[in-house]
């Protein structure tokens, strides 16, 4: 169930250029049901900016009621967020969305987790939970350049982690798909989050496989009431013809909605 809560900042660190990890404490954490869920975050109590920002939950610690989010400064909202100090309060609406399906993954099965840029954060909690289930996890992360690389070390804890950079300053030069080819990576299921071109490439590359994509769109309500964040379904005869990213997603099976 969705709650609104003033959560307290317990940590704020810049983990890469303009990319921050913010740890928040509050009761809302215990309501999170799946990796890949997100929250809607009010960066200020004032009306400037007015709308909350959707940010994925990157790391969860239900026991001590903490969760981490990892965000990049994109505009004014995330900039203001980066000024929050330990002890400050942040109003959070969440948890939102359905997250990645993991209950049906069995010990010994292989999951390939592919992250692109600032799409990587929700994959951290995903990987942790999969590993906990005994799933064999492999990560492929794509970034523009060395300075933008995040979570490589954290993810390595749960499984082998490859990195690709567009300019070749770290890992394989090229894209995540180049890494997958290069190392002939195999999997029972692929989970991914990142820029749309990357998601499209993966969807096209593995038409026969089980691929789960986490999507983004500009949102208002975040709960499914305003129809801001819809995507058309791929099947033209779908009963609804559309899905809401916020409440039906943000994670969809590849082939469900038009990217």
């Amino acid at each position, binding site marked *: 169930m969705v709650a609104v809560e003033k959560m307290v900042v317990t940590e704020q660190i810049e983990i890469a250029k303009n990319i921050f990890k913010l740890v928040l404490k509050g009761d809302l954490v215990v309501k999170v049901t799946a990796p890949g869920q997100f929250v809607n975050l009010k960066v200020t109590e004032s009306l400037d900016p007015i*709308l909350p920002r959707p940010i994925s939950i990157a790391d969860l610690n239900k026991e001590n009621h903490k969760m981490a989010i990892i965000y990049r400064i994109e505009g004014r909202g995330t900039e203001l967020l980066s000024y929050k100090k330990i002890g400050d309060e942040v109003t959070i609406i969440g948890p939102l969305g359905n997250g990645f399906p993991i209950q049906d993954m069995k010990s010994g099965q292989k999951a390939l987790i592919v992250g692109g840029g600032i799409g990587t954060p929700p994959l951290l909690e995903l990987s942790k939970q999969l590993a906990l289930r005994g799933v064999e996890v492999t990560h492929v992360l794509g970034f523009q350049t060395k300075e933008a690389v995040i979570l490589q070390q954290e993810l390595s804890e749960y499984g082998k982690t490859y990195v690709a950079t567009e300019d070749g300053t770290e890992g394989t030069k090229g894209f995540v798909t180049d890494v997958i080819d290069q190392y002939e990576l195999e999997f029972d299921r692929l989970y991914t989050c990142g820029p749309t071109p990357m998601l499209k490439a993966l969807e096209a590359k593995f038409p026969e496989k089980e691929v789960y994509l986490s999507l983004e769109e*500009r949102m208002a309500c975040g709960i499914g009431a*305003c*129809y801001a964040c819809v995507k058309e379904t791929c099947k033209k005869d779908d009963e609804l013809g559309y899905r809401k990213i916020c409440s039906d997603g943000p994670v969809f099976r590849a082939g469900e909605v038009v990217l």
Partner: protein
Amino acid sequence: MSRLNVSLPGLEMKNPIMPASGCFGFGREFANLYDLNILGAIMIKATTVEPRFGNPTPRVTETPGGMLNAIGLQNPGMEKVIGEELPWLSQFDVPIIANVAGKTIEDYETVAKEISKVDNVKALELNISCPNVKQGGITFGTVPEVAKEVTERVKAVSEVPVYVKLSPNVTDIKEMAKAVEAGGADGITLINTLTGMRIDLNTGKPIIANVTGGLSGPAVKPVALRMVYEVSQTVDIPIIGMGGIQSAEDVLEFYYAGASAVAVGTANFVDPFVCPNIIRDLEKLLDQYQINHITDIIGRSWA
């Protein structure tokens, strides 16, 4: 006795607070958050004859103190709204105001006729003012004669009172109000959104895929108040005011301006619990300002 209960044509309400059309879907999402029974009424999402997918995305963006939307009246169509959404809503003891939209006058008649037969639909809100639909829509809302005609024809087929929702994008809102009153409207709701635009600095192109969108939120509150003030002194039918309401204080301001009830739109996105919070705070505010009953202050700002 409650100090917040309000009676308007077709509507017996526990309090004058209702979510605005398009900002609350058909209530399902918010029903997960709180008991909808506490609401004065619910204005459901615009309903058209056929299902509509709406506009391409991005459909929303933020502006200083407000937001733009160009949803494009996405809705599952009259049949599903009547067959699924309204029956589901009937579990709540809350009057429903059905927002009716269309491309032609016939569309309005069709939806109005059918949807007004549903038990829990206690009033219609004719959306003749949606700026985000390319055909029809906007003309109805800016030409007094056309507005009058739509109102008359819908009144002729509706089984419940008809409120007409006015567009603020007009030179003279009073003319529009008089026209729909003459057409037989039982009430007026205002304001719908102001047409606005925002441009992406990186691309130089409009952020909203539909190019322009409707501006709502606190930024438009002064315009909404002015129109409620003008219209309430011009017509004899009640007004449901809206535009930027975020707090119980804002509700008082709309009452002073001349509203008989209010709707809350954008604020539901900022805080999904805003409606229950306002209802809770309103009672306290009446004490603070020594107001006996909310209806006592309608139009207090009039000269």
